[in-house]
């Protein structure tokens, strides 16, 4: 879900405000992992923290998640305690956009025919999070809070889309502090 393209859509984030890493149940249980465990996901390029959810309908050697939900705290004018910044995570820290040097060139890490970013062939290791590594890319305690962008107002505490369509005599039109 690419919520960020709509400046953090107030409706979509109610449907899906944070993500988990989905793992095959038997693969996870073989490694001593349980549903809801905190894990570290490591690739050759970085390491992130995530919470796992176990399921049957995923290949045993594959993990997946909903993309583009994790946010830096304060980003997109979300409150710093928003689940996107405290429970969700972003895969980008595990991925590189360039392949290792070859013949003096750095080729893009993309499909050679379509040019599509090669997000789907990354080898990762999933280990139980023991809380020892504080310097992970998405650890909220280290990442600070993004300042509100210039010219952006404080986020609304209540939305009343559609109230303006009611007749001016309707009591519902001006309830709840009016429309924001």
């Amino acid at each position, binding site marked *: 879900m690419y919520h960020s393209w709509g400046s953090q859509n*107030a409706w979509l984030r109610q449907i899906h405000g944070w993500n988990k890493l989905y793992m095959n149940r038997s693969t996870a249980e073989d490694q001593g992992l349980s549903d809801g465990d905190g894990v570290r996901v490591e690739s050759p390029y970085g390491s992130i923290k995530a919470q796992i959810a176990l399921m*049957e309908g995923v290949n045993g050697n594959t993990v997946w998640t909903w993309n583009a939900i994790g946010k830096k705290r304060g980003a997109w004018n979300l*409150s710093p*305690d928003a689940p996107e910044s405290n429970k969700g995570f972003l895969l980008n820290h595990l991925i590189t956009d360039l392949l290792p040097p070859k013949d003096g060139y750095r080729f893009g890490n993309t499909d050679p025919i379509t040019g599509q970013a090669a997000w789907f062939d990354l080898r990762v290791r999933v280990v139980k999070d023991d809380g020892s590594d504080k310097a992970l890319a998405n650890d909220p305690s280290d990442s600070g809070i993004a300042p509100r962008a210039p010219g952006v107002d404080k986020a*609304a505490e209540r939305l009343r*889309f*559609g109230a303006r369509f009611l007749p001016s005599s309707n009591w519902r039109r001006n309830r*709840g502090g009016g429309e924001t």
Partner: protein
Amino acid sequence: MTSLPNATDGRKLGLVIDLDICVGCHACAVNCKEWNTGGHSAPLTDEEPYGADPHGVWFNRVHSFEAGDGDSGRTVHFPRSCLHCEEPACVTVCPTGASYKREGDGIVLVNADTCIGCKLCSWACPYGAREYDYADGVMKKCTLCIDRIENQHLPPEDRLPACVSTCPASARHFGDLGDPNSDVSQLVAERGGYDLMPEMGMQPVNKYLPPRASTRHDLETPATPPESLPASTDTGSDFLNWVDRMLTR
């Protein structure tokens, strides 16, 4: 408390939702909110929309879960909204008459002008279909889009509930379930449509079509390769030969 209509003319407008087809995309939920935040019960207030616990009024919600273990496991997407029951406890429990069932077509509605926000109806409904609006202080719910299905300003083909008109998989159907010859009634008969929690005695009008049996065993038989694959030819270019191999394997 509030009485149900004594006699109806037999029409029972409602939805038929196909759990075999639904992919859980939430388009029905979002389009429902889009229409209804400007419709009969407008607005559908959102509280803390950018905070830690955003929660708003939705007439339609989708729950996704897995059922079964191992190879028999399957993902089910379950859209949930008002079922417009024939014996709706949300109506009979209402102390003011604000919650009512229409005589002509059986649609269950709330009159916001007489609702006192006591929430008894949300306790009475076993399906969780009532939605309290904290800003307005009244209960709201699915209206079956009465402001679409009867809307003379819309072309006839658009006079459908917003959730039905937007479903990209055609997993949702709208019609008269009181008429055994209607398209929806025949669909229910053909596919074994069922009531949600019939033991509650609400006699829901909306019906759900069950997922069909798994076809996984079909995959265990290897597909037979076509007999006449075009023979690869040397194009004179290593790159084109490689593309040819990739595309014909």
